[in-house]
């Protein structure tokens, strides 16, 4: 267990520094609030209404679909980097074929959601 002593000391220090900072600024910090200072920070724009309201489920669908193509891009980048690697487990032609197969399955999915109207906002 002795080798973990450093971690324990580190954790304790983290707690002291973080908690101490909050405590000290709370005790000794100057305080003159204005309405501008008290509103939630929304990238410098005044917030419109409360954040606790119901959102249309359409946002969720778009987010999920976006995620799908985001991850597709991730895979493509890895494949593109691997393409130049000398320790490729597959031959290059095969890798390119795999890439096309992957893209065509995703393309079929894209065609499907498009025709199903998942991309229409109204």
């Amino acid at each position: 267990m002795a080798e973990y002593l450093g971690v324990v000391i580190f954790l304790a220090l983290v707690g002291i520094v973080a908690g101490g900072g909050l405590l000290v600024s709370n005790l000794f910090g100057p305080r003159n609030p204005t309405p501008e200072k008290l509103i939630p920070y929304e990238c410098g724009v005044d917030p419109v209404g409360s954040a606790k309201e119901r959102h249309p489920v359409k946002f969720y669908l778009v987010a999920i679909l976006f995620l799908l193509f985001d991850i597709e891009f991730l895979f493509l980048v890895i494949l593109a980097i691997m393409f130049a690697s000398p320790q490729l487990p597959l031959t290059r032609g095969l890798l390119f074929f795999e890439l096309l197969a992957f893209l065509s399955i995703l393309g079929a999915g894209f065609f499907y959601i498009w025709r199903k109207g998942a991309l229409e906002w109204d």
Partner: protein
Amino acid sequence: MVGASELWQQMRYLMPEGLLLCAGLVILLFDLVVKKGRSLYPLAMLATAGAAALALLPLESSEPLFFGMIQSDAFARYFKVFSALAGFLVVLMSMDYKPLPARFVGEYLGILVLALAAIMLLAESTNLLMIFLSLEFLSLSSYILVGFLRNDKKSKEASLKYFLFGAMCTAVMLYGFALLYGASGSLDLPAIKAAFANRQNTPLTCLAMLFILAGFGFKVAMVPFHAWVPDAYEGAPTPITAFLSVGSKAGGFAVLLRVFFTVFPGLDYHPYWLAVVGVLAVFTMTVGNVIACSQDNLKRLLGYSSIAQAGYVLLGFVVMDGRFTQPAVMIYLLAYLFMNLGAFVVVIVIANTTGQEEIDDLAGLSERSPLLAWSMFIFLLSLAGVPPLGGWIGKYYIFATLVKGYLEGLSGGNLMLWFAVALAVNSVIAAYYYFRIVKAMFFEHARERMARPVVGGPLLTALYVSLILTFAVGLWPQPFLNWVSRMALPLL
């Protein structure tokens, strides 16, 4: 470097799931063009039947394929045949299932076919990552299928409960995988086995084993991970209930067999394993059986009955001796496939006739439809384990496995004998609620104006296939037993 010809060589072993994957995508795309979803049923039937035929081809390889991700051996081939066959029957059952909205048949069939491919992949994965991916593939398709009756509150609730429970169990299982990786330094099952060879059992591996058991136990409906079963079974469309109770359960048992038979023989695991799995199995069957006694809804009752059946099969794992355990588990699952699907066929017919699925709806069924009443009688007898039906062979082999374990003096043999006693006692409890249904069918009179059930062609086919094979496994078990022992995992 793997070239095109070598890859093609390896692809041959994946023909059944390849066919199902392509068929699933094609069905989903056809759904965009075809006006009437019903015209997609023949396509799904063709795909599942074709996959079963391809899986029956003796294409096996004991070599690891695709960089050690997959091993398409005889054991995997058995579960491919199993899954395709179950899929074919479930498609037949869906054809005449009235509550299914006609608009969404394409999506339903597409996802169902993909879920079957997921079971096949699950049975042949030999890498923890691949196991996780196929398990999630199967789970995600199942969540959607369970919630398919969008206008039915129960179906939506079932889907959400199943999803939340599944997500939790998967997280625990992943933690177990991480611990296993930490203890062995590899994700490949053979490499993990090599790393554990002749090593002492450590708390780390015990914990990993337990966590992994949670994930797989969720799939096979093992107590204490069974809480989703009654609600999901009741809310889901009935063919999907049948699919969950047979297909995804078999997938869970397949991966359980492969992981625990590949990884753990190297460890000095036996006493822990015996106690943990044995006690959980006894709890599983007792909880399932006792609660089933007070159920009035047929789908809930069959749900609890399927928990109890999972307990019987789990007892086979107690012995952890490849000679006995695998054939016993595999023959039990085969018999269970036909008797359970058959019982669900009758439930679908009753629901189509009366609009609900209570035991009271079966009252006087022997007068209204003798064929249905007698078939249900046979399926229930088989589920209760009465000779000479399929369920009896399965139960006999589980029982014999335990007794053999005792007689051969394996460590913990006395405990095994007690587990066998628990199995016998539970069979008696189970008989009570199975015969409650029989009593309603044969000794109670139909309420007034109860319609005569009409059985259409597809349901009738599914009924006859299940009936014949339930009898066949019980009366001529030898060919099935020979086949099953040939398909077992090689002993290590």
